[in-house]
């Protein structure tokens, strides 16, 4: 591939120089490519390494069972772990089913060249691009300002808006991968669209759909900005939706910018928990799906 010494021109010195130079340029560019690839992956390993080294020592059972303590006492982030789980579950409860239904519309029900579907697709991608802090402001205006209280509900609402487009896109992608023969088969057996979708097409795309949902969940679990002034924070155990609620990410943020060593240690531990959660979801999902690369 790389050499191009044509037999007939072998004796021509100028041509040879030309060839050498071209080969040399190729080599230089290839080396540069290697450098860039290594440079791109360096931060990933640096983040993983630091989070592990710094987070591991402070990751104990206390971290999951205790409440944050005033400076000088050993505390944990149990309530924040619970809060994150609760708010993300609630957000999923809303956005996963609805997202799947919207995706079935885009993929199965809308006419192939439908203008409406095109606009909704565009809207979905656009919604995915809205900065999460803006979603937070929206949720504050809609849910906090009107109900007169910071609440887990407002936090979940913001997370749900962030998850929705992700679920729609991934589900639609996996529905597209279902061969048409499945559809034809279902319809020829007399199924109506509802039956075909829920009996045949969605089950066939099951892995992709679950993948999409899990990826959206892991994304929501890592969000901070939309929770800052919706769910706020809480230093106690709380499961009630109309109360402020702690979350791993907001707690991590407040601890990261604090001046205390022990809080930094807790922040790293929280980062480790988050990253483990996210990576397990991401890697696990790939095994589930043997995704296409």
């Amino acid at each position, binding site marked *: 591939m790389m050499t191009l010494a044509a037999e007939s021109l072998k004796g021509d010195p100028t041509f040879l120089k030309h060839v050498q130079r071209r080969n040399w340029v190729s080599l230089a560019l290839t080396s540069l490519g290697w450098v860039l690839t290594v440079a791109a992956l360096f931060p990933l390993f640096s983040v993983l390494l630091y989070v592990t080294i710094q987070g591991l020592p402070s990751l104990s059972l206390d971290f999951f069972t205790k409440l944050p303590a*005033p400076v000088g006492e050993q505390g944990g982030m149990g309530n924040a772990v619970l809060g994150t789980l609760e708010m993300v579950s609630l957000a*999923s*409860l809303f956005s996963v089913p609805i997202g799947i239904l919207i995706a079935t519309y885009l993929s199965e029900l809308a006419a192939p060249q439908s203008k409406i579907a095109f606009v909704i697709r565009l809207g979905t991608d656009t919604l995915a691009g809205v900065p999460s802090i803006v979603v937070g402001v929206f949720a504050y205006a809609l849910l906090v300002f009107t109900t007169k209280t910071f609440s887990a509900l407002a936090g979940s609402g913001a997370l749900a808006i962030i998850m929705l487009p992700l679920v729609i896109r991934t589900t639609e992608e996996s529905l597209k991968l279902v061969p048409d023969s499945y559809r034809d088969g279902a319809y020829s057996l007399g199924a109506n669209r509802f039956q075909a979708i829920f009996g045949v097409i*969605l089950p066939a795309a099951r892995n992709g759909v*679950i993948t999409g*949902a899990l990826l959206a969940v892991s994304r929501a679990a890592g969000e901070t900005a939309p929770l800052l002034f919706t769910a706020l924070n809480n230093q*106690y*155990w709380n499961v009630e939706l109309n109360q402020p609620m702690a979350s791993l990410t907001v707690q991590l943020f407040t601890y990261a*910018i*604090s001046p205390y060593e022990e809080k930094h240690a807790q922040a790293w531990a929280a980062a480790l928990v988050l990253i483990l959660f996210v990576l397990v979801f991401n890697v696990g999902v790939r095994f589930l799906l043997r995704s296409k690369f």
Partner: protein
Amino acid sequence: MQHLKSALFALLIGSLGLVALPSTPVLAQAALTGAGATFPEPIYSRWFSEYNKKTGVKINYQAIGSGGGIKQILAKTVDFGASDAAMSDEDLAKAGKPILMIPTVAGPVAITYNLSGVASGLKINAYILADIFQGRIKKWNDRRIAEINPSVSLPDVDIQVVHRSDGSGTTRIFTDYLSKVDSGWATRIGSSTAVKWPTGLGGKGTEGVASLVKQTPGAIGYVEYAYAQQNQLSVAAVENYNGIFVLPTLEGASAAADGAVVPENYRVFITNSKGKTAYPISGFTWLLVYQQQDDATKGKTLVDFLWWAIHDGQKFAASLNYADLPPALVKRLEKSIKTISYNGKALLSEK
């Protein structure tokens, strides 16, 4: 299908289970939510944890800055606000209903710096501070700093100013002091919870400032003294009204508070106090509550806590370097707390 169904089902059941978890045995106790100042956070977190041990009441306090405390009490998204900047008449008018400002403790605002080789006790005055925070004095070995610190060898290091990025009562106290002494500062920058800083790094909350000072060589910032102490940060001795250089201490803050004439609404600034040993950058911090409560249970919980705070709570102040309230002031506050009502009925059980 089965799997999808069961996955969704599990999600559903899981979240319902979480939501329906019986929330702690003490359901009868209304939980309170408060937000605001970071300046008293060390003592407040102690108070709320002590009060919780004693009564089981859960008070969720989030230190989002005094500006946030004022905003959220006006928006009624919290049961009480906290601020080290007493609310202006204009802000009070916005509430539509009377708001009580209850002073809880007083404390010194330390000028803290990160200079290797220079320990605590660097002398400084308002004019130098004003020029540093306006970016006019750029180096630590500046002639004017050296002049009043003949015994200190000052390094040739850039000064990195650190201020608050959020609305802050600590900023209000600090800028109030500079405005009182330096007329140039008063006209150019003024005094508020958030001012237009001409230079420097912004830290979120007192914690953010302390953290930035700790991590940035050559930094100078202003933080509530407890933070400087807990983080072993160097603090400056500030020249007071009588020309004496005073380190931030509990006694200095007490001396500043003692001479203060506290008006009817408790709004008083004790910066640049005339007390002989007073520390000049000191201030009260207030809890902000509606005089007419909207919820009987919460209101009751709130007044009981306030009563506890101005009596039993005071004994925790000294250990964290806050000055407790003068007895005469406590007597007046008792009367005020008794006026907090729900539907025209006073909430405080007879004491």
